[in-house]
């Protein structure tokens, strides 16, 4: 029964999501903004700073760790080493897509239903709190995940078009796939779960948005940690990270269910 209910919530949420121009526009636009920005920064860095950037202590440390992880990089000229270093950050950069979409979509999900009164009617049905919250989180996380994967494809196409295609072999590694297919889903679910939780507790979407900001900072930190050479995320480290976030997803769902106060929603929102 739970599967039928969650599927039903998913289909309803998707119908509402894609009939709302703002949300549909956002889901389409955010990935292009993120991919476009990332490539622009890399292109600017390669064109104007070039290999000279690598002389800085920060990049030297990062490059040493990159060479340990992918020894073939050592054979490349300095400017291409820089490109590989920058392009390798892109898989973490893509994590921003689901988090950005979650800020706008998930945070409205419960607040909107509180305001329209549909949540009270929903709470009179046998639907369980966890089914409702998980359904709502997945309804946002799945499209966000799909556009993230599409963005990764677009990124590789643009990289080839810019004449860097011969470097993709150093970028698209086991770590790249683990990030895309394990870490990104875990982060997407976490972002949407936090958004839905915030939405269930907040009086308006704006205050709910603050809860998702919590996830953006660690994502930015991941990029910062790797590009400054503090830690180089090897496939095994990415796997561990994905597992930890997967556990966090589960804990967040359980916490969200506990925090979801049916009574106060029914009584306070009329």
């Amino acid at each position, binding site marked *: 029964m739970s599967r039928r209910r969650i599927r039903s919530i998913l289909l309803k949420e998707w*119908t509402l999501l894609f009939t709302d121009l703002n949300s549909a526009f956002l889901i389409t636009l955010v990935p292009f903004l993120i991919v476009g920005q990332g490539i622009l920064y890399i292109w600017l860095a390669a064109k104007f700073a070039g290999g000279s950037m690598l002389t800085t202590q920060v990049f030297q440390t990062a490059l040493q760790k990159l060479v340990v992880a992918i020894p073939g990089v050592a054979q490349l000229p300095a400017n291409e080493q820089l490109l590989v270093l920058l392009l390798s950050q892109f898989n973490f950069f893509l994590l921003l897509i689901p988090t950005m979409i979650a800020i706008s979509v998930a945070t409205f999900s419960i607040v909107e239903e509180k305001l329209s009164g549909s949540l009270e*009617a929903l709470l009179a049905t*046998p639907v369980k709190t966890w089914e409702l919250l998980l359904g709502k989180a997945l309804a946002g996380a799945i499209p966000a995940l799909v556009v993230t994967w599409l963005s990764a494809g677009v990124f590789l196409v643009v990289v080839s078009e810019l004449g860097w295609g011969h470097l993709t072999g150093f970028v698209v590694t086991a770590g790249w796939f683990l990030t895309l297919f394990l870490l990104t889903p875990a982060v997407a679910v976490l972002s949407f779960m936090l958004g839905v939780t915030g939405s269930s507790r907040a009086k308006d979407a704006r205050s709910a948005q603050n809860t998702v900001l919590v996830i953006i900072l660690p994502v930015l930190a991941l990029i910062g940690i790797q590009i400054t050479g503090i830690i180089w995320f090897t496939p095994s480290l990415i796997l561990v990270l994905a597992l930890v976030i997967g556990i966090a997803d589960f804990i967040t769902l359980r916490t969200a269910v506990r925090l979801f106060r049916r009574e106060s929603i029914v009584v306070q929102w009329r």
Partner: protein
Amino acid sequence: MDDVTLAVESGEVLGFLGPNGAGKTTTIRMLAGMIAPTKGYAIVAGHRTDRDIEQLHEVVGMLTQTPGLYDRLSARRNLEYFASFYPSIEPQSQVAKYLKIMGLWERRDSKVGTLSKGMKQRLALARALVHEPKVLFLDEPTAGLDPEAAGEVRRLIRTLREEGRTIFLSTHNLSEAEVVCSRIAVIHTRLLALDTPEQLRRRFFRRQIIVQLEALDAQVMEIVKRLPFVQDVREEGSQLILELTDSERNRPELVKAIVEAGGRVIGVSEKQYPLEDVYLKLIREEGQNES
């Protein structure tokens, strides 16, 4: 709410009357298992409201004060969505059934945002019924509707009553309660009265017989006053208003006496006190008790 104890039979329509803040909606929500009382419990369709919440939600239907529908979804999709949460039904056939019953079949594919207020309310009623609940809670179902739409909703509630559904109806509309409900509970944070509209009237007002005469003369009045079963009599134009010892049995004798005294009787009826008088009396008494 404080110390509310009541029993409602299957197939009964119980009306909740009370001023704003009296606890009508709170009581309905507690009975529907949506909020928990601080103390006590109820058994609704065999399920306890304090522990069998999921089973309870499967057998009760709730019409909330606001329709609470999704404006961007069609009428049919709205119903299918809510119907999908109930394990015991086949959503599509049930949705079709209730769209037809509520007269919304022709508008099944219209976005709810384009429907009139009355149509939305009928759709919300269909949502409350789509899983064939044993007990139905209707929270001010006609509030904010125009007379025509309100009349349509009332007609539907009467149909449900004829089908033998058990219904709890919270309303401010006394005439609606009188027409629709078999018993009425007047509440004001506690249960003030619970009875049929007729019994409530009798409790607060003595039965009075109205005899409509062609013309009222002193001789008729004199004869009537002398009748042993007449406890009180007063005149209002060409009418006599009487209180009798036994208003059923004494009525033929009364008419006979009036006719023999030369009076020409046009009609005999019982004075109907509006339910509003009963309600106001109860609420005022409660107010005096409180002060």
